[in-house]
């Protein structure tokens, strides 16, 4: 392998009360794909922010092409050919796709007038759209794109830089299998052109697929590295969490009961011509799979009262109900854990405690006042249960790592007593160990009689956790699968609108 052109030596970084990085070292050679893995809050994003010039390390040396520096600025990083796909999306809602890709370096024309050369901008974006197989146009307004599509835009932004090193911080966390696959091919293509890639992910099969080696972080320290030959999910998990994991699926304690939530011929605004019918039974986890844009999130929003249903009825315990607002849904015992944690799930600069109690404040009420002691106790309990890594429950949620933020969103709803729980991508950005905890918790809920509808684009999760599967395609259910029929092949067939042959795999 050729000489490393980039070296991080003894990098440290601390925040008030937290040591995010503790003398971390990393080297990258041209054309190498390095997977960076570790639990939530291990320091992966922080390390990459140091590389991208966003965060100034408290100590250590960064050596680029032989020149040693104590820190980089964003401009330095770009000059050194480092492009960055951030974990949290940083896009502009009021621009179109091309505008977002070229933000800050728009091609100009008209001499001193510096007008934006729109034609060139769109022409330059077209091949990128092609490369990632995007189903939207260069002039599509960003506001109309789904979370997954936005993630693709973020990736295009990095690709358009012609970088030497592309850092991808959980680029696939809201992509589905097909898109992930295309991204994997893009990664291989970049590698073939001598571009290096640092790839952060919690999906270990992606590491297996594309990485030349993996570096494992734990508690801000490098705890080990695996070469291509040593790579295996078990080895990675052992290094990451220091123990082995059991298999995903835990069968329910009792066979499922009657239907709790029935959705009959529901029509949403996105697919006015299509209707969805499904029912979730007491004590089961119904997985809802499908490609991005198949209408799953829209369906959940309508059931939760965020959007109006265009048609159809919703029954709870056999009784038709009207849900005009999230408040009404919550009163009926229907909860939704939304997909977009930054926009819909959390108040970022508010404490963990206050975020967790928000939907259930009324129950912490004494004479209209908030009983902060009980509120705190509950937050502490939830933090322990979900292993939320934070110095204190009074910490602002915005300063937590991505996966820990996701756990706070879950904690908000798990401390209440749902009848029906709809979870939309419940483990987006959550590490393997914590995923296990969350699945265990979902199972305990179903065993206590809750009906769970789990929307997920993570194939491993959909197949590994659900008791039954519904697959959506373009706004309608294309088929149901029982556990005996579960397979990647079947799910994908249904997701693209094909039917599957008769019985079983």
């Amino acid at each position, binding site marked *: 392998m050729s000489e490393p052109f980039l070296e991080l030596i003894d990098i440290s970084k601390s*925040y008030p*009360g937290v040591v995010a990085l503790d003398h971390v070292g990393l080297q990258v050679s041209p054309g190498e794909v390095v997977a960076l893995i570790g639990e939530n809050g291990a320091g992966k994003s922080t390390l990459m922010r140091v590389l991208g010039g966003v965060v100034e390390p*408290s100590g250590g040396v960064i050596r680029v092409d032989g020149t040693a520096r104590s820190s980089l600025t964003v401009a330095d990083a770009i000059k050194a050919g480092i492009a960055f796909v951030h974990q949290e999306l940083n896009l502009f809602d009021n621009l179109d796709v091309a505008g977002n890709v070229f933000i800050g370096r728009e091609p100009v024309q008209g001499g001193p007038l510096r007008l934006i050369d729109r034609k060139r901008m769109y022409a330059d974006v077209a091949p990128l759209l092609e490369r990632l197989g995007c189903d939207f146009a260069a002039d599509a307004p960003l506001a109309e794109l789904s979370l997954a599509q936005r993630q693709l835009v973020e990736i295009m932004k990095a690709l358009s830089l012609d970088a030497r090193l592309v850092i991808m911080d959980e680029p696939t966390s809201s992509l589905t299998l097909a898109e992930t696959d295309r991204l994997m091919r893009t990664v291989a293509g970049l590698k073939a052109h001598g571009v290096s890639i640092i790839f952060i992910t919690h999906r270990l099969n992606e590491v297996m697929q594309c990485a030349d080696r993996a*570096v494992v972080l734990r508690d801000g320290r490098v705890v080990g590295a695996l070469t291509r030959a040593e790579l295996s999910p078990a080895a990675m998990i052992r290094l990451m969490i220091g123990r082995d994991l059991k298999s995903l699926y835990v069968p329910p304690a009792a066979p499922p009961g009657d239907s709790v939530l029935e959705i009959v011929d529901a029509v949403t605004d996105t697919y006015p011509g299509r209707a969805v019918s499904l029912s979730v039974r007491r004590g089961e986890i119904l997985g809802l799979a499908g490609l991005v844009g198949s209408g799953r999130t829209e369906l959940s929003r309508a059931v939760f009262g965020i959007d109006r249903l265009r048609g159809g009825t919703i029954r709870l315990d056999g009784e038709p109900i009207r849900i005009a607002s999230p408040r009404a849904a919550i009163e009926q015992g229907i909860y939704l854990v939304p997909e977009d944690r930054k926009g819909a799930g959390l108040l970022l600069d508010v404490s963990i405690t206050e975020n967790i109690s928000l939907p259930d*404040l009324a129950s912490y009420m004494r004479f209209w006042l908030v009983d902060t002691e009980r509120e705190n106790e509950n937050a502490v309990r939830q933090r322990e249960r979900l292993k939320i890594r934070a110095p204190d429950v009074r910490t602002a949620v915005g300063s937590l790592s991505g996966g820990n933020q996701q756990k706070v969103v879950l904690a908000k709803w798990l401390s209440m007593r749902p009848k029906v729980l709809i979870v939309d991508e419940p483990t987006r950005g959550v590490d393997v160990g914590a995923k296990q905890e969350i699945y265990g918790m979902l199972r305990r809920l179903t065993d206590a009689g809750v009906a769970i509808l789990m929307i997920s684009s993570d194939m491993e999760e959909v197949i590994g956790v659900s008791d039954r599967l519904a697959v959506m395609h373009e706004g309608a259910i294309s088929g149901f699968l029982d556990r005996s029929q579960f397979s990647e092949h079947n799910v994908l067939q249904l997701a693209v609108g094909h039917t599957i042959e008769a019985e079983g795999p």
Partner: protein
Amino acid sequence: MSKKDLSLLVLILVVGTVVALINPRFLFVGNLSNTANQIGLFGIFSIAEAFIIIIGGIELSVGSVIALLGVLFIDLIVNHDVNWVVALAMIVAAGLAIGLVHGTLVTRMRIQAFVVTLCGLLIYRGAARYYTEDATAGFGFGASFPMLEWLAAGRTNILGFPLPHSVVALAVVAVIAWVVLHRSVFGRYLFAVGKNEEAARYSGIRTNRVIISAYVICGGLTAFSAILIAMYTRSISPAVHGSFYELYAIAAAVLGGCSLRGGEGSIIGVVLGTVLLQVLQNLVNLLGIPSSLNFAVMGTVILVGVLGDQYLVQRRQRVGVAKGREQASVAAAPLERVKVE
């Protein structure tokens, strides 16, 4: 009391001391009592404004509402012989109704708060001037409401200090507002809506209702202060009465730590902000600064105050990081690190 409130208090004490050193008249009982009265009057509608700023809105019609409702109140009791208790109830109800209209336009019609209340500012001012035909409304020679006047504009001697009743009113309003904002469930909802309306909605909060309630509270409090101010000035020229008061209110709120982005603010801060503004006003008078410079002085001090606060916040963050670093090195010492090849 937060650090922010504390630094504001220090600023007030510093400014006060300087003024007192240059002109000892600042500490005369009469002067202090008059300044306190101004604080009482301005504090109430500043708290009203803070409710709106905390939910991420803005209310620009405060001054015009004070003019219109003040005119109506005096007209009701002087010219229409309405019992003052009834008149008071009617005016407060009118204030609540104005808030309801603003809140409804902002939520249901989705018009920006700035636009709604800017139109309010123009409309109510015009209405007040039209209603009185631009004449000054006031108490005639014979008219006398001893009870009302004592309650609204009187002073009670406490340990030799004539305490204006407006200060008592402010104290009551501030305590209630403090409990509502900082301790009650509804207060949490106000802050949540100001921080992230979407997330609040997903959490089952009836966001529209919360926003409308904030405007209603603001309207009611403004109406109440309109009556106190009318009773204090005793005559109202509708073209200028209360003009720029919305800006005093916004300034007090911002000085007191409210963020115009919403979701931040404290009642103690707003009250202290009002105190600082009135001390400054007093400073201009006592130090013989031309009163034409009044606004310029106030603007400068607000700017300096906000800049200083920003500086302190940033310094605190740096200090915090340095502390974290110390802990880091202590924590790292006993553990050995695994090397990567």
